């Protein structure tokens, strides 16, 4: 597999504030990555450094095998859509798309036009006058129609309704199937995208918490629901990430696989076993209680 992005012990500090701390990971070609984490975890900072819009304070960063800073061979192959993108006051939607068309080598005009129709955008309206959702739609259209070998979406759905979000996911998957590329998706709506993601990187407090194949993660944790006593016995010796009880019932989430024999035994005791969703798993991992225990997950 070709490595599109290689990050090695990357650091970013503002004065005495460390925002990114010794982060290392690699992004492989033609996969969909989820970069997940809480607000302020450092996701956007990392993506800004990958696109050379911010400068790392230390560490090594390679995109398409080269340093991205002032490097057109690298930059012309990246499309980075972010929620905080600024537009010139005078620009209309049509102007933004026109400029995007001339800057992205793989731009597909007919695809862009089809997306404008799908998202029902008024192309003659000024960017300043757009609603939050429309502004997000413009970003999504630029990100999809640019067909850049490395496409990065940083919380692209802000203000979008469920219909439009679904449209985005559908178009992304369809177009990804026809024109494979590397996609990095940073989002809070983990459940909505979890089926799309092939690889998940979780970042918390400027550190990598998790870097794994999504398939592997789906079987990583289980929730056992049943009579409190039976559940306690089942959980004994396992690594708990969450516990709740209501009356005589208890629910525990544990890390690690459950063997067939264990499963049958648990079921005989009236315990129901369900896999923990990606979103729940990440909430557990990043809510501050379980920090530091994650190393055992891998």
């Amino acid at each position, binding site marked *: 597999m070709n490595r599109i992005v290689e990050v090695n012990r990357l650091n970013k500090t503002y004065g005495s504030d460390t925002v990114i701390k010794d982060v290392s990971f690699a992004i492989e070609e033609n996969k969909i990555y989820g970069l997940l984490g809480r607000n302020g975890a450092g996701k956007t900072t990392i993506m*800004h450094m990958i*696109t050379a*819009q*911010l*400068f790392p304070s230390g560490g090594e960063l390679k995109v398409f095998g080269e340093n991205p800073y*002032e*490097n*057109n061979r690298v*930059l*012309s192959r*990246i*499309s*980075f859509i*972010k929620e905080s*993108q*600024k*537009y*010139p*006051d*005078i*620009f209309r939607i049509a*102007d933004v798309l*026109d*400029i*995007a068309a*001339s*800057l*992205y*080598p793989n731009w597909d005009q007919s695809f862009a036009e089809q997306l404008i129709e799908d998202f029902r955008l008024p192309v003659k309206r000024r960017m300043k006058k757009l609603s939050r959702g429309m502004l997000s739609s413009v970003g999504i259209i630029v990100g999809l129609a640019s067909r850049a070998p490395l496409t990065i979406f940083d919380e692209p759905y802000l203000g979008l309704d469920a219909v439009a979000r679904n449209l985005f996911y559908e178009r992304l998957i369809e177009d990804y199937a026809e024109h494979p590329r590397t996609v990095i998706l940073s989002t809070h709506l983990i459940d909505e995208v979890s089926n799309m993601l092939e690889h998940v990187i979780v970042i918390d407090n400027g550190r990598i918490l998790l870097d794994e194949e999504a398939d592997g993660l789906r079987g990583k944790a289980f929730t056992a629901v049943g009579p409190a006593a039976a559940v306690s016995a089942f959980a004994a010796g396992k690594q708990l990430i969450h516990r709740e009880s209501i009356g005589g019932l208890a629910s525990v989430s544990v890390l690690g696989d459950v063997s067939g024999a264990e499963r049958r035994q648990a079921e005989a005791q009236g315990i129901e076993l369900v896999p923990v969703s990606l979103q729940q798993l990440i909430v557990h991992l990043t809510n501050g209680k379980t920090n530091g225990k994650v190393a055992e997950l891998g």
Partner: protein
Amino acid sequence: MNRMTGVMKIHWKDKWNWIYIPWIILLFSFAVNVFIGVLTGGEEQINSGGLSSIFIYIFVCSLIVQGQTFSFALGLNVRRTDYFAGTSMMGLLVSAASAIVLSFFSLLEKWSDGWGVNLHFFTIPFMNSISPIGRLGIYFVVLVHMFFMGLVISSIYRRFRRTGLFVFFTTLFVLSSVASFSLTYYGLWLDVFGWIANHYMEMFVWMAPIAVVYALLSYAMIRRATV
């Protein structure tokens, strides 16, 4: 497509700022002066200062433009070098076009003997002795100088943000106060004005290398600027 021309295309979308507004101001001022000329029946010679508006506006334009387009261009993965090159090229082209149009008007002004009403709007008195090509050169070099002066100031903000501008303007204020005080103290103001009156052509010539210095400083700062 060349990415520098992409940047120029971004600027070209904002024709109001680059072209329409400065020319509307200039031509409006011109119209008012012609009107006054008609009222006075051309008996008084009018030396209007209205021409200066276009030089001031190109300075304002380059101050505004960077704040409007830099983050957008970088967001579309344009190199800082291409951003600088495209923006500078746009400034040079607009200056050149404006200088040509101004020269054309100044010729008309001469042929029509002050638009028939003894109005000197596009030429300043000392320019009468300068050839049309020389006038074109003066318009161009002043426009370019003003453009890069705006660019270097907005680049200070891009690179060093508010602190940078604060330090810059404080230093500028202190230095000019000291200079002004010393000139008064040593009674040198008249000498300065005298020198300027005798050397204004040299001042125009010097604007060219100074503009180059502004451009180099802008580039150095833009290279290290973040969104």
